[in-house]
């Protein structure tokens, strides 16, 4: 039980570091740590498939993509211009108001039931695969088209235009 609170604390700590780190590379590394703690959360809920997918897709693919982009973009001169303190303050107040709203809405519910895993193989690959390829077959195929179009779009956007075009 205390495992959850410890990991939750780590997630919040690292995600705060993500948005406060001055160097973008450090931000990305902290984001990797945050996603790792999220993977642990998935494992704690016995959602093994999502844990593996989170590990491979987010930490393996997306964050490496971020790192490569950051290396492509030459940030030697760095010194990202900071926003003025007033804007920062306003941003924190805005996010804080959002959080307070949600907490207030949560208070209205009162005490909640504990999260209990009734079916131990709910999040296993076998179970999820059956659902994915029976009920959600069409969205699955559509998402593959989405990925294809995203790939074509990314290549199209990132290549340099030729003069003849």
């Amino acid at each position: 039980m205390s495992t959850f609170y410890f990991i939750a604390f780590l997630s919040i700590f690292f995600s705060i570091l993500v948005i406060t780190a001055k160097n973008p590379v450090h931000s990305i590394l902290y984001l990797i740590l945050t996603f790792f703690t999220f993977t642990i959360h998935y494992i704690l809920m016995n959602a093994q498939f999502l844990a593996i997918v989170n590990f491979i897709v987010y930490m393996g693919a997306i964050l490496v993509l971020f790192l490569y982009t950051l290396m492509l973009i030459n940030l030697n001169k760095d010194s990202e211009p900071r926003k003025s303190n007033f804007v920062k303050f306003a941003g924190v107040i805005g996010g804080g108001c959002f959080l307070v709203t949600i907490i207030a809405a949560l208070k209205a519910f009162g005490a909640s039931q504990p999260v209990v895993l009734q079916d131990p193989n709910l999040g296993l690959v076998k179970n999820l695969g059956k659902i994915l390829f029976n009920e959600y077959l069409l969205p699955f195929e559509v998402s593959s088209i989405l990925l294809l179009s995203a790939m074509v779009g990314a290549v199209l956007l990132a290549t340099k235009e030729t003069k003849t075009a």
Partner: protein
Amino acid sequence: METLSHNIQAIPLNHYILFCSVIFSIGVIGVLVRRNAIVIFMSVELMLNSVNLLLTVFSVYRGDASGQVFVFFIMALAAAEVAVGLAIIVMIYRNTNSIDINVLNRLKW
């Protein structure tokens, strides 16, 4: 695995919702506060992930596997979004030599 899933049994749903909202708000604050386009993008990823986690929690809470399938779709969507978004950022950098979003105010009314 048995001990792991027993670990979770005593945690109220409210604590999960609270935790995910905190992460989501941190993402919102990151979007509002930073000027580096890549860091803003990373904050968006943070928000997406907190929602994913909450969706999984509800899926476990209700004993319905559809929630986890949706999380899978959201992850595919996030991958596509990151590919296109980073391509756009690279193109912006090539045109303006900066990834400061305040340079990009030409679309402002």
